[in-house]
């Protein structure tokens, strides 16, 4: 396993446009330090997140994912995060049962004014993923592929 300390995790963060993305902006504009390893994708609502996007993230080089939406009750579209909550819980249960470290899959709620909380969350997520190290891929061999395992001799 790569040395865990100097490993730079790549984390894909889906932030809901109305709350968490604004919180990220606030954190940035008020100069709060938070680790730069997250790559932010703005989405209209946490309800927009198809669980497959998160599974596919693990095939595209991410070491972990974070989805952050408005607190239940504050959703701009009223119940987007309520629907999302069930999906996230089931997805997390599924991936954890399938053997993927639960630290890699993170969900939270963060409203537009909670810049500090957002920075703290990102710190925690980066620390959690550094803890489990780089994601070796569902085939357990990173992204290099060995031929004979794939070819007919299997």
């Amino acid at each position: 396993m790569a040395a865990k300390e100097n490993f730079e995790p790549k984390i894909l963060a889906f932030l809901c446009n109305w709350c968490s993305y604004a919180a990220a902006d606030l954190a940035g504009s008020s100069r709060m330090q938070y680790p730069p390893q997250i790559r932010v994708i703005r989405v209209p609502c946490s309800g927009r997140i198809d669980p497959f996007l998160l599974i596919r993230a693990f095939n595209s080089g991410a070491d972990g994912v974070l989805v952050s939406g408005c607190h239940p009750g504050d959703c701009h579209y009223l119940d987007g995060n309520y629907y999302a909550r069930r999906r996230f819980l089931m997805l997390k249960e599924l991936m954890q049962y399938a053997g993927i470290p639960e630290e890699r899959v993170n969900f939270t709620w963060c409203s537009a004014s909670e810049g500090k909380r957002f920075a703290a969350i990102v710190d925690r997520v980066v620390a959690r993923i550094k803890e489990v190290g780089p994601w070796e891929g569902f085939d357990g061999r990173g992204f290099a592929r060995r031929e004979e395992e794939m070819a007919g001799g299997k």
Partner: protein
Amino acid sequence: MENKYLEISKKIQEESRKLLSEGKVERIIGFGRGEFTKEITPIFVSDPDRADELLFTPECDMMLAKYLLDYKGSKTGIVAKPCDTRAITVYLAEELIKREEVFIIGINDCEGLDDNDACEECGIRNPVVVDLEIGQPRKEEIDPEIKDELEEMTREERFEYFQKEFSRCIRCYACREACFVCTCDECFADSNQPQWVGASIGKRDNFTFHLMRAMHMAGRCINCGACEQACPEGINMRALTKHLYRVAKDVYQFEPGLDPEEKTLFATYKLNDSEQGFLD
């Protein structure tokens, strides 16, 4: 064939001949036997004289409910095990079929199929929704535990177990085609814009396919075992879906296919739904 199943088969044949000759249904989907193989195979009977080909035995492990989707717009009869009726209930809850277009010949007091392990974990022994009952309903309720065979394994051991298990998959998609839940026009596995899962049978693509397939089963799979019966490679298809079944039951007190009026798991929410595992 023990006399119990002989009687059931006879009753099915009588009722079907009546239904067909009275024109109540245009066809009846049921089980018959192969001419050469003598194996059970789904048959479609619309001529009353062929009603005698219909039968029911503990080998009838195909889920016939899925064929209903091919006959929308006309009245179809179906020989339904209790799990078939649960499948029909999921279809009704998701408005995929109209109740008045289906005439359900339900088998009462199902004792489970011969070599389908899923039956030992099934508590639904009488049809959930039915038009015509065959045999006497089983009185006492049973609620067998849905076993977790991988309970003692650590996370790493489970990961390795699934990698090994799914590496044998040849992506023939028999599991998808046999499963009544899989009704999408274009499956995610066939999409190339975006390409959700690679086309190879390497460990990465196979694991991704099975993970995504299981995620689509959340709150809809009734643990009937049709995927395992169809899989030619003998892969443990139900490990992931059973876990989601247990989670849906414990966390949301939800079991699919029991009440056509009840919305399915992801189609609704409660204000106080659990947030276990979320970062607070």
